[in-house]
């Protein structure tokens, strides 16, 4: 079968991936007060990468994004556990979450919670697991 010219799919993917990535990051950061969070944010980001895999081939995407997704999942689990251990340092129970208000230079008064770090761990684990599954399935030829 000869290779088809899919210029429409490619050019639309370039725009759509940016929107999906922005939406994924928005979902991730809005998880504390609105629907969203680490799990859906990670899944949406994995969706964007999967769209790239479908449009372009896996090898060229992997060349431009040299991330070891297994190590990424491991890092996510490690971050989640370390935020739990962080509560134990201040004589609290495991997984005790703390938050405080800071004056950041760009955002003004912002609530920073250690739940966000836990969410980051969840997101990394979800992205790593989903991409590992997809890449492993696609690699038998």
């Amino acid at each position: 079968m000869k290779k088809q010219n899919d210029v429409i799919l490619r050019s639309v993917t370039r725009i759509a991936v940016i929107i999906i990535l922005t939406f994924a990051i928005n979902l991730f950061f809005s998880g504390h007060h609105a629907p969203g969070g680490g799990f859906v944010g990670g899944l949406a980001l994995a969706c964007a990468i999967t769209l790239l895999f479908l449009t372009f081939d896996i090898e060229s995407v992997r060349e431009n994004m040299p991330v070891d997704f297994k190590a990424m999942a491991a890092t996510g689990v490690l971050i989640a556990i370390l935020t739990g251990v962080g509560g134990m340092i201040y004589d609290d129970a495991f997984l005790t979450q703390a938050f405080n208000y800071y004056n950041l230079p760009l955002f003004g008064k912002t609530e920073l919670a250690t739940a966000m770090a836990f969410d980051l761990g969840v997101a990394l684990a979800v992205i790593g697991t989903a991409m590992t599954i997809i890449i492993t399935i696609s690699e038998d030829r």
Partner: protein
Amino acid sequence: MIAAFLILTGALFSFLSSIGLLRLPDVYTRIHAASKSSTLGVLFTLVGTFVFFLFSEGYFSIRLILGIFFVFLTAPVSAHMIARASYSTNVKMFESTADNKSKAVDG
């Protein structure tokens, strides 16, 4: 009021789209019905929802605008890909279709 009218129009367009999906003869005309009018139906419904939340609660939902833009960007492309996949797997057209010149071009 405007929101109710917009959402009703959107539902009507989606209904027309589903009727077209049932009654048209072959896959290409069905894609034509399914992609165009249901995209417009979704557009009207989303704009109606946007207007409703803007005027009743004063909430400017950027996600709805993004959703409208995203549906308008991707729905025609998905219709194009389905039509091209069915063409390249030699799906029969409706009987009275004139012989098309694009057979030589191949997708």
